[in-house]
């Protein structure tokens, strides 16, 4: 098991009812983690439109997770 911090932004904060979560997981990748979180969330955001970042860098859905990582799930931007 590893300990990570998860950040949610925009409408994903509403889906997961929080903006920040200290989380323990056995998930190995960002994809595994996302699937694990889906089992706990109300509603199912479309993954195609979501970007994922680790430690302030965009990564892909097969990126490995390490103990102490901060993982962010980002819906489509709506600035401007």
């Amino acid at each position, binding site marked *: 098991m590893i300990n990570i911090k998860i*950040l949610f*932004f*925009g*409408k994903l904060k*509403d889906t997961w009812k929080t903006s920040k979560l200290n989380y323990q997981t056995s998930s190995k990748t960002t994809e595994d983690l996302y699937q694990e979180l889906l089992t706990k969330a109300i509603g199912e955001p479309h993954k195609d439109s979501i*970007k994922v*970042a680790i430690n*302030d*860098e*965009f990564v892909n859905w097969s990126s490995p997770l390490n103990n102490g990582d901060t993982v*962010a799930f*980002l*819906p*489509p*931007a*709506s*600035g*401007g």
Partner: protein
Amino acid sequence: MKLFNLSENKINDKQLKELVLDPNSGGFVCFEGWVRNNNQGKDVTKLAYEAYNKLAIKEGNVIISEAMDKFTIKKAICTHRIGLLEIGDMAVWVGVSAPHRDAAFKACRFILDEVKSRVPIYKNESWTDGESGWVEQE
């Protein structure tokens, strides 16, 4: 100095313009995005922008670098507001100076479009019916 920034305070567009003007440039193009009182059929009273600050600043500066590579321009700067904004407040400012107008117009449009689609900034609108919600990009 970073060329893309987030600001919790009102955007000082005069100061930004001073930073973009360049003696080698014959053209300056600027875009200002303001908060309007309606969106997607709803009457808007105010809005809040929140961002993933570190990643937003990083990605915004990547976009400015891309514009510098892609177009024959001299300087480019963009600032986006975060926090609570009222109707009429400036939400985003993009300024580009270039030797000739065509590159300045194109680069300004490129920066704005890319910032809107790639920089993790999120808009939460409040409406006259008392409700509020996250807004999807049109």
